[in-house]
Protein backbone atom coordinates (compact mmCIF):
# COMPACT_ATOMS: atom_id res chain seq x y z
CA UNK A 1 0.00 0.00 0.00
CA UNK A 2 2.82 2.40 0.90
CA UNK A 3 4.72 1.48 -2.25
CA UNK A 4 1.64 2.15 -4.39
CA UNK A 5 1.06 5.61 -2.92
CA UNK A 6 4.73 6.55 -3.29
CA UNK A 7 4.75 5.42 -6.94
CA UNK A 8 1.65 7.50 -7.72
CA UNK A 9 3.18 10.55 -6.02
CA UNK A 10 6.43 10.07 -7.96
CA UNK A 11 4.55 9.94 -11.28
CA UNK A 12 2.60 13.12 -10.46
CA UNK A 13 5.78 14.95 -9.42
CA UNK A 14 7.68 13.96 -12.55
CA UNK A 15 4.77 14.98 -14.81
CA UNK A 16 4.67 18.37 -13.12
CA UNK A 17 8.43 18.85 -13.63
CA UNK A 18 8.23 17.81 -17.29
CA UNK A 19 5.41 20.24 -18.06
CA UNK A 20 7.20 23.06 -16.27
CA UNK A 21 10.52 22.47 -18.04
CA UNK A 22 8.88 22.15 -21.46
CA UNK A 23 8.30 25.89 -21.59
CA UNK A 24 11.98 26.79 -21.32
CA UNK A 25 13.63 27.04 -24.78
CA UNK A 26 16.69 24.87 -24.14
CA UNK A 27 19.31 24.68 -26.84
CA UNK A 28 17.66 26.82 -29.46
CA UNK A 29 19.62 29.53 -31.16
CA UNK A 30 18.70 32.64 -29.28
CA UNK A 31 19.69 35.75 -31.09
CA UNK A 32 20.51 39.09 -29.64
CA UNK A 33 18.30 39.88 -26.74
CA UNK A 34 18.18 36.91 -24.47
CA UNK A 35 21.71 35.65 -24.95
CA UNK A 36 23.82 38.81 -24.90
CA UNK A 37 26.23 37.89 -22.05
CA UNK A 38 26.94 34.51 -23.65
CA UNK A 39 27.66 36.02 -27.05
CA UNK A 40 29.89 38.68 -25.47
CA UNK A 41 31.99 36.10 -23.62
CA UNK A 42 32.37 33.89 -26.68
CA UNK A 43 33.22 36.61 -29.15
CA UNK A 44 35.42 38.91 -27.11
CA UNK A 45 36.67 36.79 -24.23
CA UNK A 46 39.94 35.86 -25.81
CA UNK A 47 40.87 39.36 -26.97
CA UNK A 48 40.30 40.98 -23.62
CA UNK A 49 41.83 38.47 -21.25
CA UNK A 50 44.25 36.49 -23.40
CA UNK A 51 43.22 33.03 -22.22
CA UNK A 52 42.26 30.57 -24.94
CA UNK A 53 39.79 28.67 -22.74
CA UNK A 54 36.72 30.87 -22.34
CA UNK A 55 35.38 28.86 -19.39
CA UNK A 56 38.58 29.55 -17.46
CA UNK A 57 38.45 33.26 -18.13
CA UNK A 58 34.82 33.40 -16.96
CA UNK A 59 35.55 31.41 -13.79
CA UNK A 60 38.66 33.32 -12.76
CA UNK A 61 38.31 36.82 -14.19
CA UNK A 62 34.71 37.74 -14.84
CA UNK A 63 33.28 35.78 -11.89
CA UNK A 64 36.38 35.60 -9.73
CA UNK A 65 34.63 36.54 -6.52
CA UNK A 66 32.35 33.49 -6.75
CA UNK A 67 35.42 31.27 -7.09
CA UNK A 68 36.79 32.80 -3.91
CA UNK A 69 33.52 31.90 -2.18
CA UNK A 70 33.72 28.33 -3.46
CA UNK A 71 37.26 27.89 -2.15
CA UNK A 72 36.06 29.23 1.22
CA UNK A 73 33.26 26.63 1.31
CA UNK A 74 35.78 23.81 0.78
CA UNK A 75 37.94 25.27 3.55
CA UNK A 76 34.99 25.38 5.97
CA UNK A 77 34.15 21.75 5.20
CA UNK A 78 37.75 20.73 5.93
CA UNK A 79 37.65 22.66 9.23
CA UNK A 80 34.43 20.89 10.21
CA UNK A 81 35.95 17.48 9.53
CA UNK A 82 39.08 18.45 11.43
CA UNK A 83 36.97 19.44 14.44
CA UNK A 84 35.28 16.02 14.42
CA UNK A 85 38.58 14.17 14.12
CA UNK A 86 40.40 16.14 16.74
CA UNK A 87 38.93 14.36 19.71
CA UNK A 88 39.26 10.84 18.35
CA UNK A 89 42.18 8.58 19.03
CA UNK A 90 44.50 7.42 16.33
CA UNK A 91 44.26 3.87 15.09
CA UNK A 92 47.29 1.88 16.22
CA UNK A 93 48.72 0.05 13.31
CA UNK A 94 50.18 -2.95 15.06
CA UNK A 95 47.07 -3.68 17.08
CA UNK A 96 44.81 -4.48 14.16
CA UNK A 97 45.37 -7.58 12.12
CA UNK A 98 45.12 -6.72 8.50
CA UNK A 99 46.72 -8.08 5.46
CA UNK A 100 49.51 -6.07 3.90
CA UNK A 101 49.50 -5.44 0.18
CA UNK A 102 51.02 -7.94 -2.22
CA UNK A 103 54.33 -7.32 -3.92
CA UNK A 104 52.79 -6.45 -7.29
CA UNK A 105 50.59 -3.77 -5.77
CA UNK A 106 53.41 -2.25 -3.75
CA UNK A 107 55.76 -1.98 -6.72
CA UNK A 108 52.99 -0.65 -8.95
CA UNK A 109 51.94 2.04 -6.50
CA UNK A 110 55.49 3.17 -5.93
CA UNK A 111 56.02 3.42 -9.67
CA UNK A 112 52.75 5.20 -10.46
CA UNK A 113 52.71 7.83 -7.70
CA UNK A 114 55.06 10.42 -9.28
CA UNK A 115 53.45 9.95 -12.71
CA UNK A 116 49.95 10.72 -11.40
CA UNK A 117 51.21 13.79 -9.50
CA UNK A 118 52.89 14.96 -12.72
CA UNK A 119 49.64 14.50 -14.65
CA UNK A 120 47.67 16.49 -12.06
CA UNK A 121 50.24 19.28 -12.25
CA UNK A 122 49.91 19.31 -16.05
CA UNK A 123 46.13 19.67 -15.78
CA UNK A 124 46.17 22.70 -13.50
CA UNK A 125 49.10 24.52 -15.08
CA UNK A 126 47.55 24.39 -18.56
CA UNK A 127 44.18 25.49 -17.23
CA UNK A 128 43.86 28.41 -19.63
CA UNK A 129 44.78 26.44 -22.74
CA UNK A 130 43.04 23.05 -22.52
CA UNK A 131 40.06 21.71 -20.59
CA UNK A 132 40.80 21.34 -16.92
CA UNK A 133 41.85 23.82 -14.31
CA UNK A 134 42.56 24.11 -10.64
CA UNK A 135 39.80 21.97 -9.16
CA UNK A 136 40.26 19.04 -11.50
CA UNK A 137 44.05 19.01 -11.06
CA UNK A 138 43.72 19.20 -7.28
CA UNK A 139 41.43 16.16 -7.17
CA UNK A 140 43.88 14.16 -9.31
CA UNK A 141 46.74 14.97 -6.92
CA UNK A 142 44.59 13.93 -3.94
CA UNK A 143 43.87 10.62 -5.70
CA UNK A 144 47.61 10.03 -6.02
CA UNK A 145 47.98 10.38 -2.26
CA UNK A 146 45.05 8.02 -1.76
CA UNK A 147 46.90 5.45 -3.88
CA UNK A 148 49.93 5.85 -1.64
CA UNK A 149 47.78 5.12 1.42
CA UNK A 150 46.27 2.03 -0.13
CA UNK A 151 49.32 0.50 -1.73
CA UNK A 152 52.43 1.04 0.34
CA UNK A 153 51.73 1.56 4.01
CA UNK A 154 55.17 2.12 5.39
CA UNK A 155 55.53 5.51 3.77
CA UNK A 156 54.23 8.22 6.04
CA UNK A 157 52.57 11.31 4.62
CA UNK A 158 53.69 14.43 6.45
CA UNK A 159 50.40 15.95 7.51
CA UNK A 160 51.87 19.10 9.02
CA UNK A 161 53.33 20.21 5.70
CA UNK A 162 49.97 19.49 4.01
CA UNK A 163 48.24 21.93 6.33
CA UNK A 164 50.98 24.52 5.78
CA UNK A 165 50.72 24.23 1.98
CA UNK A 166 46.95 24.57 2.09
CA UNK A 167 46.96 27.69 4.24
CA UNK A 168 49.74 29.32 2.21
CA UNK A 169 47.88 28.72 -1.06
CA UNK A 170 44.73 30.31 0.34
CA UNK A 171 46.68 33.35 1.53
CA UNK A 172 48.29 33.69 -1.93
CA UNK A 173 44.87 33.75 -3.60
CA UNK A 174 43.56 36.54 -1.38
CA UNK A 175 46.92 38.32 -1.67
CA UNK A 176 46.63 38.44 -5.46
CA UNK A 177 43.16 39.93 -5.11
CA UNK A 178 44.48 42.66 -2.79
CA UNK A 179 47.40 43.31 -5.17
CA UNK A 180 44.82 43.88 -7.90
CA UNK A 181 43.19 46.43 -5.63
CA UNK A 182 46.50 48.19 -5.05
CA UNK A 183 47.85 48.29 -8.63
CA UNK A 184 44.65 48.21 -10.62
CA UNK A 185 41.18 49.47 -9.95
CA UNK A 186 39.25 46.70 -8.23
CA UNK A 187 39.61 43.53 -6.20
CA UNK A 188 40.84 40.53 -8.26
CA UNK A 189 41.52 42.56 -11.36
CA UNK A 190 43.78 41.26 -14.11
CA UNK A 191 46.75 43.60 -13.72
CA UNK A 192 49.58 41.63 -15.31
CA UNK A 193 50.27 42.07 -19.06
CA UNK A 194 48.24 40.03 -21.45
CA UNK A 195 50.97 38.18 -23.38
CA UNK A 196 50.81 36.33 -26.69
CA UNK A 197 47.98 34.00 -27.54
CA UNK A 198 48.29 30.25 -26.89
CA UNK A 199 51.48 30.60 -24.88
CA UNK A 200 51.95 29.18 -21.42
CA UNK A 201 52.70 32.57 -19.83
CA UNK A 202 49.65 34.43 -21.06
CA UNK A 203 46.41 35.64 -19.66
CA UNK A 204 47.73 37.82 -16.90
CA UNK A 205 46.89 36.61 -13.42
CA UNK A 206 44.94 33.51 -14.49
CA UNK A 207 47.75 30.87 -14.37
CA UNK A 208 48.92 32.07 -10.95
CA UNK A 209 45.44 31.87 -9.45
CA UNK A 210 44.88 28.40 -10.86
CA UNK A 211 48.21 27.17 -9.48
CA UNK A 212 47.21 28.42 -6.02
CA UNK A 213 43.77 26.76 -6.27
CA UNK A 214 45.31 23.48 -7.48
CA UNK A 215 47.70 23.25 -4.53
CA UNK A 216 44.99 24.19 -2.07
CA UNK A 217 42.38 21.69 -3.22
CA UNK A 218 44.92 18.87 -3.53
CA UNK A 219 46.36 19.34 -0.03
CA UNK A 220 42.88 19.72 1.48
CA UNK A 221 41.42 16.54 0.03
CA UNK A 222 44.57 14.53 0.82
CA UNK A 223 44.28 15.69 4.44
CA UNK A 224 40.62 14.66 4.58
CA UNK A 225 41.37 11.17 3.24
CA UNK A 226 44.27 10.76 5.67
CA UNK A 227 42.07 11.74 8.59
CA UNK A 228 39.35 9.29 7.56
CA UNK A 229 41.77 6.37 7.27
CA UNK A 230 43.79 6.96 10.38
CA UNK A 231 41.24 7.91 13.00
CA UNK A 232 38.72 5.73 14.76
CA UNK A 233 35.04 6.55 14.09
Amino acid at each position, binding site marked *: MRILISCVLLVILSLGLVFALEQAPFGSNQIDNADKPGRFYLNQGMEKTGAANVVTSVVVTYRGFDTLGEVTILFIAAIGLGAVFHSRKKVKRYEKE*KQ*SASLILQTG*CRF*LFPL*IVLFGTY*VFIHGHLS*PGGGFQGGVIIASAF*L*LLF*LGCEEKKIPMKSMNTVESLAGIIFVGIGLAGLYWGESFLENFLPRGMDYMLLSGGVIPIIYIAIGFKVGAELAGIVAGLIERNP
Partner: protein
Amino acid sequence: MIVSIFLLVIGAAIVLCLIRLIKGPTATDRAVALDTVTTVTTALLVILALVFKRYIYLDVALVYAVLMFIGSVAIARFLEKGI
Protein backbone atom coordinates in the same frame (compact mmCIF):
# COMPACT_ATOMS: atom_id res chain seq x y z
CA MET B 1 28.50 4.72 -41.87
CA ILE B 2 31.49 3.04 -40.24
CA VAL B 3 31.16 5.34 -37.24
CA SER B 4 27.59 4.08 -36.74
CA ILE B 5 28.81 0.48 -36.64
CA PHE B 6 31.47 1.38 -34.06
CA LEU B 7 28.98 3.16 -31.84
CA LEU B 8 26.51 0.27 -32.01
CA VAL B 9 29.15 -2.27 -30.99
CA ILE B 10 30.31 -0.14 -28.06
CA GLY B 11 26.71 0.42 -26.96
CA ALA B 12 26.13 -3.34 -26.96
CA ALA B 13 29.27 -3.80 -24.81
CA ILE B 14 28.02 -1.28 -22.24
CA VAL B 15 24.60 -2.96 -22.06
CA LEU B 16 26.21 -6.37 -21.49
CA CYS B 17 28.33 -4.98 -18.65
CA LEU B 18 25.22 -3.46 -17.07
CA ILE B 19 23.52 -6.86 -17.18
CA ARG B 20 26.45 -8.39 -15.31
CA LEU B 21 26.31 -5.55 -12.79
CA ILE B 22 22.66 -6.32 -12.04
CA LYS B 23 22.90 -10.09 -12.05
CA GLY B 24 26.25 -10.97 -10.50
CA PRO B 25 25.93 -13.00 -7.29
CA THR B 26 28.97 -11.66 -5.45
CA ALA B 27 30.49 -8.20 -5.15
CA THR B 28 33.63 -9.26 -7.04
CA ASP B 29 31.63 -9.83 -10.24
CA ARG B 30 30.24 -6.33 -10.02
CA ALA B 31 33.66 -4.79 -9.45
CA VAL B 32 35.03 -6.50 -12.57
CA ALA B 33 32.00 -5.30 -14.57
CA LEU B 34 32.66 -1.71 -13.44
CA ASP B 35 36.29 -1.90 -14.50
CA THR B 36 35.36 -3.29 -17.93
CA VAL B 37 32.75 -0.61 -18.57
CA THR B 38 35.29 2.08 -17.79
CA THR B 39 37.77 0.69 -20.32
CA VAL B 40 35.08 0.54 -23.01
CA THR B 41 34.02 4.09 -22.13
CA THR B 42 37.56 5.37 -22.66
CA ALA B 43 37.45 3.96 -26.20
CA LEU B 44 34.03 5.61 -26.73
CA LEU B 45 35.38 9.00 -25.65
CA VAL B 46 38.30 8.75 -28.08
CA ILE B 47 35.98 7.85 -31.00
CA LEU B 48 33.68 10.77 -30.14
CA ALA B 49 36.69 13.12 -30.14
CA LEU B 50 37.42 11.89 -33.66
CA VAL B 51 33.82 12.47 -34.75
CA PHE B 52 33.59 15.99 -33.31
CA LYS B 53 37.05 16.85 -34.75
CA ARG B 54 38.22 18.58 -31.54
CA TYR B 55 41.45 17.01 -30.43
CA ILE B 56 41.70 18.83 -27.12
CA TYR B 57 38.88 16.63 -25.84
CA LEU B 58 41.30 13.71 -25.47
CA ASP B 59 42.36 14.84 -21.97
CA VAL B 60 39.09 13.59 -20.51
CA ALA B 61 39.77 10.02 -21.67
CA LEU B 62 43.24 10.23 -20.12
CA VAL B 63 41.77 11.26 -16.75
CA TYR B 64 39.38 8.31 -16.76
CA ALA B 65 42.07 5.83 -17.78
CA VAL B 66 44.25 6.87 -14.84
CA LEU B 67 41.65 7.30 -12.10
CA MET B 68 39.57 4.16 -12.47
CA PHE B 69 42.61 2.11 -11.48
CA ILE B 70 42.58 3.84 -8.09
CA GLY B 71 38.89 3.08 -7.56
CA SER B 72 39.42 -0.59 -8.40
CA VAL B 73 42.37 -0.78 -6.00
CA ALA B 74 40.22 0.68 -3.21
CA ILE B 75 37.41 -1.88 -3.74
CA ALA B 76 39.89 -4.77 -4.02
CA ARG B 77 41.72 -3.81 -0.81
CA PHE B 78 38.40 -3.69 1.00
CA LEU B 79 37.48 -7.15 -0.24
CA GLU B 80 40.75 -8.70 0.99
CA LYS B 81 40.35 -6.90 4.35
CA GLY B 82 43.47 -4.83 4.14
CA ILE B 83 42.33 -1.23 4.01
